[in-house]
């Protein structure tokens, strides 16, 4: 087995989606697909595992909620109780309605920010990182499918041609 991969370039997301399905039906291994925008249904077509970020979002939300509760309990009840609108801050539960907006906002804040950070870590993205897409056009209007070359390069090339690829190049993949 060589480390060779084929880069097939497409210029339409529907064509790409069908191509992915056909290539997978022929039991070729698709290494990666580069697209300028999220293509609906592509993850399913590529057979990627469903994302687990929703579970993390729930956990992060729970953390945010707990932080808000502890924070407001410390600030408003323990550290510096005040009498606001005739409602002295003696107990958390009795003043709870006033803290609900904060609890809500902190839940959303934690869930959103930590989710983005998790996504960056998981996708190995950081500032000044060198782009991984093989051709810059995949950030503009082209779609690129990277397929591992099996035993028969000619057959694969023919298949990719048939699926509507506008350009096919062979690349040595360096690990």
């Amino acid at each position: 087995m060589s480390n060779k991969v084929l880069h097939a370039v497409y210029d339409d997301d529907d064509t790409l989606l069908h191509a992915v399905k056909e290539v997978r039906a022929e039991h070729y291994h698709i290494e990666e697909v580069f697209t300028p925008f999220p293509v609906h249904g592509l993850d399913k077509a590529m057979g990627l595992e469903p994302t687990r970020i929703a579970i993390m979002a729930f956990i992060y939300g729970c953390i945010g909620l707990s932080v808000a509760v502890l924070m407001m309990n410390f600030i408003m009840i323990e550290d510096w109780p005040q009498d606001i609108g005739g409602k002295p801050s003696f107990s958390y539960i009795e003043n709870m309605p006033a803290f609900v907006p904060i609890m809500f906002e902190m839940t959303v804040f934690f869930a959103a920010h930590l989710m983005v950070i998790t996504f960056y870590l998981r996708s190995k993205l950081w500032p000044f990182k060198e782009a991984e897409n093989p051709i810059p056009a995949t950030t503009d209007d082209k779609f690129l499918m990277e397929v591992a070359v099996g035993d028969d390069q000619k057959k694969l090339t023919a298949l990719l041609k048939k699926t509507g690829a506008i350009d096919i190049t062979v690349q040595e993949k360096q690990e």
Partner: protein
Amino acid sequence: MYTFSKKLKLFSFALMILGALGLTYGFLSAPSNVEEAKAMVADAHGDGHGDIHEEITHHEADHHEEAGHDSSHDEHLLHQLQNKPWAALYVAALFFMMIALGALAFYAIQRAAQAGWSPVLYRVMEGVTGYLFPGTVIVFVLLVLSGLHLNHLFVWMDPEVVAHDELIQGKVSYLNVPFLLARAVFYIAGWNLYRYLSRKYSLAQDAVQGISFHKKNFRISAGFLVFFIYTESMMSWDWIMSVDPHWFSTLFGWYVFASMFVSGITAIALITIYLKAKGYLEKVNDNHIHDLAKFMFAISVFWTYLWFSQFMLIWYSNIPEEVTYFVTRIEDYNLPFFGMLIMNFIFPLLILMNSDYKRVNWFVVMAGIVILLGHYVDVYNMIMPATVGDQWSFGVSEIGGLLFFTGLFIYVVFNTLTKAPLEASGDPFIGESERFVY
């Protein structure tokens, strides 16, 4: 074409008969004079429950008797007990009318937005809105009966009360029986006119080439939505908020709208799943159920947002006129008031949060039933505290009202469904809807 199964028809009739019996019992057992009313309350306390709440009210009653027990208190008690079957009837009538109206608003939004995912569900929605006409007429009749002083649901309708109440006197130019009924006729006529025309155009679209009726439907739907949001808001003041004539809340119309909207969508989802299980609606699949469940989830959260916004502002500002509304509910209606939050918010939030669960039909059914019951309790909490006060209970007349209108609703809705093919085959978006992936 859908055929109304014998079993379901029988079931709906059984519910109606049971419900009618329960309501009749409720009306017959209501006290007719002050002595009977006092005897009923004394009986209830005399049973000697170990319940703490009972003990407290007992002591309060004792206290009142010692304090001389003025006769207006007894009169008040009599009115509350006499109101109870009426209020039970009114709550149930209002709730099912709101389901139909909420579904109509949802339908109009689909039409006005020219939604691509929902046309396979149009006939189900039209079936649910089929209840709008009987539902609104029943509520109207109840309002007329209140206007004729057959009950005391609306205290401002009683000239005796108004004579001693400056706050209501200031509102008489709006809150008077003829004007209330005139407004009701206006709302009801407008809603039913839209429902009639959009149904007619929807059926006509199946038979013609081109999209002329689709366009007509689009136009009247956009117009209806403008009409609806004004009239719905005013309806909520007239038919619901005015039972507490001293109290006011500026976002009450929105709050009631959220309640009816989520109830309507839930009813659509439940009926869709039922029809699907019976082998109809071949073109409806999990993607459509998923979208309906997303709406159920989202509008449940939206309802909670409005509930809390209304609650927190009033709680924080603590203005006596406003805050009594919640004081009554928290002291006398603790269980239904907070129970409703669990049913309408916590439960759907946890059950429907996961994307996969929204595709599991029995999960949606379970969440849907709890949401519908929760919003019945919501309407109950809107009407009961002002009409029966602390004499509330969930007894024969309440269950009777709920059963009767459930039966009537099922009968009318499924009867409407038999009137036309279950697929709006002429809709220009039917193909898109069929291929829809969430």
